[in-house]
């Protein structure tokens, strides 16, 4: 049994961590938070040059052809530093959609560019308020032209193309690839609780759209890819949870009140212990997810929902209590606590909200994978 990353994967982690600690300090995150840019182009280019974006993309499509385990390692590191880059949209989603359902031509057209960072892709499903479900998708494609509105679309303001779920002529849900630099596309950047990750509304008015995957198979493909992306996202959340815990622990050791470090008070000590507990549970569940991701296990849907629910819970918990441990300072703009708080709450909603994943987890377990978490 080896429910752990390999030594090579750990080397990769150290490598990525070194790169990010140099190129993506909190000041870089703040530059995106406060500035006009939607993401940190230099960090993104650097990740591409490191070969990190294409780590799980086959060599024939310009990647390095390693496994998704390496991508999990990368995701955790991106999460730790809250990297303001569109990796989740472009790699966990767009690249995975192409790998899962793209034609050879589509793969050849886009995967190499995703791997080298030349192009950014994203995925658009939600059309507004509430849980996304098939009935809520109204965007439609007629005669190869897409009409409708998708909102919010993560990184939709900077992406070069988007994979869209829409109704085909027969009203069935299918997936389409739309070039966002083409005609009939309007983008609006949206204000959000986490401005370090861009959100946009994409309006399509007879925009050229090419089918991705089999007609009518849109919901099915999306579910499968979203499960895979959820595991990668869970690693990002895990990284964030761990880092928020470390930040709180360090502050509790340094900050004095009543002549003692505040970490010597049980109220703070036990709060930190509980943060450790949830981060540890999340890590173990993420490793389970990583195993399912690469082993092609039948319980992937259960493992994905498990990792996702656990990591969402842990990151929200750790980011929230990190502020509490910091007291008033934790609520200033100058301290980094709110970066974690924003990110934790934003990631909790991307790919579907916590309650959606909770419900899916139990639905999937009752559909026959009951033994999985026993």
């Amino acid at each position, binding site marked *: 049994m080896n429910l752990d990353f390999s030594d090579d994967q750990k080397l990769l982690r150290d490598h990525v961590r070194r790169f990010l600690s140099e190129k993506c300090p909190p000041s870089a995150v703040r530059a995106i938070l406060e500035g006009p840019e939607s993401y940190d182009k230099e960090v993104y280019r650097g990740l591409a040059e490191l070969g990190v974006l294409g780590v799980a993309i086959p060599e024939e499509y310009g990647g390095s052809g390693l496994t998704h385990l390496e991508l999990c390692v990368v995701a955790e590191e991106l999460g730790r530093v809250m990297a303001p880059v569109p990796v989740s949209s472009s790699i966990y989603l767009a690249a995975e959609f192409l790998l899962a359902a793209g034609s050879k031509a589509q793969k050849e057209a886009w995967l190499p560019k995703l791997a080298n960072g030349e192009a950014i892709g994203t995925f658009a499903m939600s059309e507004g308020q509430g*849980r996304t479900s098939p009935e809520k998708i109204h965007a439609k494609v007629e005669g190869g032209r897409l009409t409708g509105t998708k909102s919010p679309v993560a990184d939709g303001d900077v992406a070069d193309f988007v994979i869209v779920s829409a109704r085909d002529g027969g009203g069935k849900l299918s997936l389409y690839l739309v070039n966002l630099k083409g005609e009939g596309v309007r983008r609006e950047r949206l204000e959000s*609780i986490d401005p370090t990750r861009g959100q946009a509304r994409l309006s399509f008015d007879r925009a050229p759209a090419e089918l991705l995957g089999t007609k009518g198979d849109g919901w099915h493909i999306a579910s499968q890819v979203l499960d895979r992306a959820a595991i990668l996202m869970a690693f990002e959340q895990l990284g964030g949870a761990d880092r928020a815990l470390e930040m709180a622990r360090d502050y509790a050791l340094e900050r004095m009140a009543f002549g003692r470090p505040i970490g010597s008070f049980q109220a703070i000590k036990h709060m930190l212990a509980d943060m450790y507990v949830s981060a540890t549970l999340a890590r173990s569940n993420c490793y389970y997810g990583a195993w399912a991701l690469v082993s092609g296990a039948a319980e992937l849907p259960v493992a994905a929902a498990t990792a996702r629910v656990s990591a969402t819970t842990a990151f929200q918990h750790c980011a929230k209590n990190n502020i509490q441990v910091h007291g008033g300072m934790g609520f200033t703009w100058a301290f980094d606590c709110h970066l974690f708080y924003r990110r934790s709450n934003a990631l909790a909603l991307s*790919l579907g909200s916590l*309650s959606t994943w909770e419900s899916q987890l139990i639905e999937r377990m009752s559909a026959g994978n009951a033994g999985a978490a026993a």
Partner: protein
Amino acid sequence: MDFEDTAEEAAFRSEVRAWIKANAPAHLEAELKRANFGSNGVVSEDPIAAGKAWQKKKAEAGWACLHWPKEYGGAARTPIERVIWGQEEGPYAALTGVFTIGHGMCGPTVMAWASEEHKRKLLPPLASGEHIWCQLFSEPASGSDLAGLRTRAVKADDGSGDWIVNGQKIWTSGAQHSDWGLLITRTNPDVPKHKGLTMFFLSMTSPGVEIRPIKQANGASGFNEVYFTDVRIPDAQRLGEVGQGWEVSLTTLMNERLSIGSGMSTGFPELFRFCMEAEIEGRPAVEDAAVRSRLAQIAVKQSGLKYTGMRAISALSKGETPGPENSIGKLVAGAAMQDLAIFALDLQGEAGVVWDDDSPQQGRFQAMLMRSPATRIEGGSDEILRNIIGERVLGLPGDIRVDKEVAFRDIPTSGRAKPK
């Protein structure tokens, strides 16, 4: 068990109601009702000027600082009359939020500790809204541990008897609008921490006072840092004896906790309305079992706080002192609002991340998400409040103290040094 006024209370209430109807700035009512965290909501005119004008009008008619003695600008009314006034003033109370600290905390401290001459000089313009006061207590290194403050006041060496103040305060609400400040300083670092403090009041326009707004995590700036560089304060502006500052500060803080409101909001009414409108799988969210369970638990907290407030008012109505129940308000409301905001965003699905005017209720839940962490910290963190309930209400022993018998300058200031 009733919600009725006594005959006297009813008479007083109708008098108040009639006066407010005739005099309140009705054109601002809609804006005031939209008030969000940290502002009174007025945008069509200068919100501070509007507040001062309303306070002045109240003062001229004898409705300012109802519980203060008349000689200091008050109306010598009973506590329950003050409560009734507050209920009837309703949304207009938000107008004069900028006076809350002056009327609720600084005024009572001046009343208890200043000379008669100062009281007659300082309190009437505070009551009438001419002057705004702020409270200069917290410091970057002393929040929950207020007595750990470091702002120094030393006697001027020119024999004037004046004090020269250097240091920094933080979390000062309204400093930028204030005429006067209540300032606690350390005058002797060689005695234990609680014994070397001295309280002053000073003009906020004194040379050497610099006010910088603090940008908060939610982007707003409700608080300030105040820097003191060789600020000179006449000894006559001292409140209490030299070294008696801690005792004086307790007057201020006790008054902070005495304030009785209708209970803090958890955000439940907004969430409930949202759940009536939002849908899950094509049905109103309020019909979803998970939503119901969450809503019910918040509902009983909101309701519990409301009726806890009413129990306190009932005690006042009978001329009794309310019990300690009201100490639970912020502790319950802060955490509940944070959970509620996270839940409301969850119900919005992926769109919950968006925070603009098209968001449900104009982004109110996103605003709650970003503001609620401060509620759990300001004016006593959740942890301090639990200590207070445990010790003052339940009578449990205090935490073990390692800093009480030590000279202030010998208390370690870095956690990396091993604690004793």
